[in-house]
């Protein structure tokens, strides 16, 4: 044995997420994932509501107390938006998957329509159905 093996050099990887200029479609892709993840938590709320309905008046009033409060209403509005945003995102992906709207500016319009559509629909639903 002569000498010692040189330490393996650690090759750097070129910077990626740190230097890439965020694009709308890229941010929308992240939001599709985030809303999808939020819906898992939202399912727990939905199940809680179902159980409360089945369990009777006391359990249901507890549910009403929690989600009738301001933080509770914020969560419910957030869930409304997450459902609608994820659903519209699914339609956006269907359109892209059949090969439509890949060109500029249609892909940007589609991403914007997804965002504006989900916010508008959520607000409309709450304005119409919430007893203000």
């Amino acid at each position, binding site marked *: 044995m002569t000498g010692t093996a040189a330490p393996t*050099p*650690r*090759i*750097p*990887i*070129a*910077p*990626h*997420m*740190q*230097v*890439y*200029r*965020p*694009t709308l*479609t*890229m941010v929308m*892709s992240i939001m599709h994932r985030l809303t999808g993840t939020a819906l898992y938590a939202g399912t727990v709320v939905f199940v809680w509501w179902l159980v409360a309905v089945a369990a009777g008046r006391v359990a249901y009033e507890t549910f009403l107390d929690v989600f009738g409060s301001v933080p509770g209403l914020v969560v419910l509005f957030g869930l409304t938006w997450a459902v609608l945003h994820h659903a519209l995102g699914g339609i956006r*992906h269907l359109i*892209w*998957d*059949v*090969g439509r709207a*890949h*060109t*500029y500016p249609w*892909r940007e319009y589609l991403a914007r329509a997804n965002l504006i559509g989900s916010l508008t629909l959520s607000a409309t639903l709450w304005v119409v159905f919430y007893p203000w």
Partner: protein
Amino acid sequence: MRAFLPLNFGTDTASWVAKGKIWNTPAGAKATRVFEIYRYDSESGRGPRLDVYHIDRGSCGPMVLDALIKIKNEIDPTLTFRRSCREGVCGSCSMSIGGRNWLACTQRIDDIEGSIRIFPLNHFPVKKDLVVDQRHVLAQHQIIQPWLKTAKPAPEGEWLQSPEDRVKLDGYYECILCFSCTGGCPSYWWNGDRYLGPAVLLQAYRWIVDSRDEATGQRLDTLEDPFRLYRCHTIMNCTKTCPKGLEPAKAIARIKAMLVARQH
């Protein structure tokens, strides 16, 4: 909008970029432009750094590649980058310029505001400065067997193709394999070891739709894989960053559709 993360983000300290040398402003320059350029030399024993160069715009050509050549000729001959044709057909000078990937030879300096930040193609291993190691992505390119595969005996002359069938290759045969799209694909950043990436998949589609090719089924078999093809989540960075104006995301969508269609 600039990237919102700090430059040195994550736990891979070998890839962190240190502050580098600030080279002097050229004397008598009327309009200077600032270039922040990624530097790395494996023989220096140090990690990557970001050098700052000041270029006299008045005595520099219009493209980013002109500025790089000017730096190499007049300021710092150690700056290393790939380039060849200087007119957007060879694909050598693809790099991250101002937060997206483009060919340095077709990217106008004046189209970028403020200081111009230049990095090697995102997430590729760096050999030196702006030169990246393409061995992995070229090996992936070999997987899709990018050549005409036929079973029939070869004709006396050429393999003929009708004009209608030839049109199907438009938008796909123009790819110059600069890998701007692959470097800009977040899915490739996270799963590049197994995901083939937009450039290779666009090439795969180019051979799948070629009417002369007789290995379509075999080609689709190669791609029917959770990682090779289906890590594409239609983020669209590839299509936006293609300096040839091609649509890799559409090619991938078409492959996915063909895989569904052949089940029925």
